[in-house]
């Protein structure tokens, strides 16, 4: 049969695809679960054993070998091609993600394991055994080498995992479709059905490729230093979760909100001073903080009877509740009976409500636009003060007093202009740098000295040290941020422009 050389090219492609799926599964697993050594070992082991299982299963196929070969190709194309998007999708939604991962790896391995034995049996009648084994296996190994080199230097950095996965699925499907022409003399009947199936698989993969672009653009993938493991667009913002060796990062509109490795420093500093400054709070208000991490700290206090969390974005609070890595990180705070979630603009909400709170944690994104800037105005702080019980304490995240010094002091002075007594404080969060907060009450007060719940960071000495400012962060004369001047947005833009 004079077509054999092309068949060997197919072997090369099949081999490359097989290795790519294995590498993809290993990479996705190490991205989302961390600990790449364990993930790669497990997946390689599982995949190789699945290849063996496939080879063993091939003995049960006797009739219409050429047609079965094409079916297996299409199966690999579908399972392998969709593996990376499917794994990311499952990661965001399934609690039993690991089991699913190993299942997917085993299915792909088994299908790939079927390919070569069937192909060798098809070719047996055209070549002698010595020649066959030597040719097939050498093309197999060359294909693997080809894939192994291409994967880290071109595919992952240029295309990303999802696109690589789908494109190799298309290659597999292409081999299957081409097989209906190449192996035509061996196909007894049903050639039309095979082609239809191939066309369907190709169509599914093409749709997936288009959708992958809608999910994250290549440009966006390049924006983030780490792998994007989840991305979605709500009516209000772009939500992106990335994974690095040290853990997760959450980005809103491209701005880092937290890194799981050091968020405890930020959230302990944000929450505990306000919770410890006065009598034990019962009713707590969290404004912003849709990641549920401030809530996690608040819920540590047995005195807390009710937590009201007001966050604009239902998609964000929903993600924090249902996205397993996030809900694990926030200790399932959104499932706590004491939590009440309100999805509204905090300004509109606070104009409307009449409740009073014993402690308020204000965790809005930095004031980088006018819609956020209004949440840092005298108007907002006056409305907030009206919602406080007499001994209530408020803490506010206030951007960096080092990188955005005027912005920081503008927030502090604006709170004072609204009639609050304010104690500024700061700490270091490695992912952000030096970060600033403000503690406020309606009457003069002393800074808290002790946190009574378990902490990782905020012991008494650290707590006391936060209220000290070095000269490079000392107050500057600033204007007050009002609704009708939005000074803060202007300061903020000017100051951060210098650092980016």
């Amino acid at each position, binding site marked *: 049969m004079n077509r054999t050389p092309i068949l060997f090219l197919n072997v090369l492609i099949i081999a490359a695809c097989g290795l790519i799926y294995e590498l993809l599964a290993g990479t996705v697993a190490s991205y989302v679960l961390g600990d790449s050594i364990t993930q790669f070992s497990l997946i390689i082991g599982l995949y190789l054993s699945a290849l063996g299982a496939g080879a063993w299963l091939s003995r049960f196929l006797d009739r219409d070998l050429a047609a079965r070969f094409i079916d297996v190709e299409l199966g690999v194309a579908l399972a392998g091609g969709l593996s990376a998007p499917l794994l990311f999708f499952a990661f965001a939604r399934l609690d039993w993600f690991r089991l699913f991962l190993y299942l997917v790896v085993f299915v792909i391995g088994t299908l790939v394991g079927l390919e070569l034995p069937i192909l060798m049996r098809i070719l047996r009648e055209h070549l002698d055994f010595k020649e066959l084994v030597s040719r097939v296996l050498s093309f197999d190994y060359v294909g693997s080498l080809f894939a192994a080199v291409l994967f880290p230097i071109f595919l992952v950095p240029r295309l990303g995992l999802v696109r690589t996965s789908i494109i190799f699925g298309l290659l597999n499907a292409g081999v299957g479709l081409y097989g209906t022409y190449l192996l035509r003399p061996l196909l007894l009947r049903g050639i039309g059905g095979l082609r239809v199936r191939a066309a369907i698989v190709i169509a599914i993969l093409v749709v997936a490729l288009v959708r992958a672009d809608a999910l994250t653009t290549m440009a966006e993938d390049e924006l983030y230093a780490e792998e994007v493991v989840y991305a979605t667009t709500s009516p209000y913002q772009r939500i992106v979760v990335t994974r690095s060796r040290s853990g997760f990062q959450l980005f809103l509109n491209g701005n880092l909100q937290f890194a799981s490795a050091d968020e405890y420093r930020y959230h302990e500093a944000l929450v505990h001073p306000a919770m410890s400054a006065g009598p034990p709070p019962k009713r707590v208000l969290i404004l912003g903080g849709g990641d549920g991490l401030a809530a996690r700290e608040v819920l540590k206090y047995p005195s807390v009877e009710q937590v009201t969390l007001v966050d604009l974005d239902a998609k964000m609070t929903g993600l924090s509740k249902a996205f397993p890595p996030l809900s694990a990180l926030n200790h399932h705070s959104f499932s706590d009976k004491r939590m009440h979630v309100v999805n509204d603009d905090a300004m509109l909400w606070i104009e409307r409500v009449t409740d009073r709170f014993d402690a308020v944690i204000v965790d809005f994104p930095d004031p980088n*636009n006018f819609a956020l800037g209004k949440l840092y105005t005298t108007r907002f702080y006056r409305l907030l003060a009206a919602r406080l019980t007499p001994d209530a304490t408020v803490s506010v995240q206030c951007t960096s007093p080092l990188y955005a010094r005027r912005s920081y002091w503008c927030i502090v002075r604006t709170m004072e202009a609204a009639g609050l007594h304010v104690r500024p404080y700061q700490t270091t969060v490695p992912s952000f740098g030096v970060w600033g907060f403000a503690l406020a009450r309606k009457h003069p007060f002393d800074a808290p000295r002790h946190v009574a719940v378990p902490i990782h960071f905020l012991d008494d000495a650290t707590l006391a040290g936060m209220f000290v400012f070095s000269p490079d962060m000392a107050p500057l004369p600033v204007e007050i941020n009002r609704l*009708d001047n939005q000074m803060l947005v202007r300061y903020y833009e000017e100051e951060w422009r210098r650092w980016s």
Partner: protein
Amino acid sequence: MAAVELSRRDLLAAFLGATVACRARPSKTPLPPGTLVGASFESGHRLRHELNITPGRWIEHDVVICGGGVAGLVAAWRLNGIDTIVLELEPALGGTARSGVNAVSAHPWGAHYVPAPSPENRVLVRLLREMGVMDGDVPREEFLCRDPQERVFYRGRWYEGLYLTAGATDDDLRQLRAFEAEIAKWIDWRDAKGRRAFAIPTALGTDDAEVTALDSLSMAEWLDQHRFTSPRLRWFVEYGCRDDYGTLLGDTSAWAGLFYFASRIPRAGADSEPFITWPEGNGRIVAHLGRNARAMTGTLVTSIVARDDGADVIALRGDEAIGIRARRVIFAGPQFVAARVIRDRPHANEFTYGSWMVANLTLRDRPQSNGFPLAWDNVLYDSPSLGYVVATHQRGIDRGPTVLTYYYPLCDADPHRARERLLATGRDEWADIALTDLERAHPDIRALTERIDVMRWGHAMVRPRPNFVQSPARLAAHEPWRTIHFANTDLSGLALVEESLWHGVRAGEEVLGELGRPLDSWL
């Protein structure tokens, strides 16, 4: 189909210019629905014919106020405690400060802000205090126009502010500074009695000839005399004239033009007084004043006959003719109507009025925009419209559905011609004009707009033409005629809410005096 397209192009060319008309894409999507809202010019036009009506019944009130706009309602406010009734032609009170409301937001139909008053403007301070707007002498933060206040669209991009700084040459900027210096001179100018050249209300300003003589020039002539040739400076000044008066530079008295720039700045070098605004614009003032006023809407006053001891007012309410016998009448409508309904009073033909179209666009979401973000007032540099204000801006709703109020003054030199063009153009045509204009800055606006309601104001604003504002005829018009007193912003020669307030209180106090009531003036 070709004929329809051609006529659409003609329409767009007539209202937006040939360039826009040529570039306008043929619209495949149908126009969003909407209605034509007031003003009731059809019933008003019945006054053109002599109406001889015998009332079926007579009622009596101490004072009848004809006209339920801000001036009439303020007069009623001043006459609190006196048996007073307000008659209004339209189905709702407010005159050109009327507002509307839909599922998304309240929105203005006309006047939509008032500059924060200086302490001398005692009437406005008193009213705003009563409305809970003031915190001592300063307006509360939530009533001051939120930042960002203004932006201007030019060649594909929005820029902050109203004066187009982007691309300005050194000479443009030098002329801007020289213009500001010229204005600063007028801001600090005082006459022998210590009065400002341009004060709000205008009655508090000087009558010194150095200032009043400016009325004999047009603003264009004044700019020419001072060699202000910079196109963007002249655009900036003309925008002010179109915005406040509905007139072009050549049809605006230099006195009025300078008044616009100099009256709202307390002293040279200071910031302009901030704007007080509400989602429904000055509809908030109307609602406050209307709450305590006894009013009959949908009532057309057909004649007012002065007697020695009072006056008879005859009005049509639907098909019913009502006679009202009053001790005094305050005519709070515009002078062109006074000429038709007050028997025997000499006509004041010097008063001319400009036409406006106002469209409220209800949007399902915020439109795309390139450059500086959405502000309260959004102006297109290359447009005969004034752009639009955003109803949800002041409420702090920064996302999702909103209502945009789009203003288009017809600035024709001949106001009759403007009125003809206004009324010959229907709801659909106006909706298309507004969308085509805004599409230049917001390519997606047509698809986002769920409805467009259109108001055609035939006599929106009195026009401060040269030689009118300081004319004896204008000054004489506010003098009472027998038992009839007058209150309307047009008596000042300018359409400003502060002038309505002044005249409303002044007329109210004239009547209080004539009725022999003790008087402690609010002015």
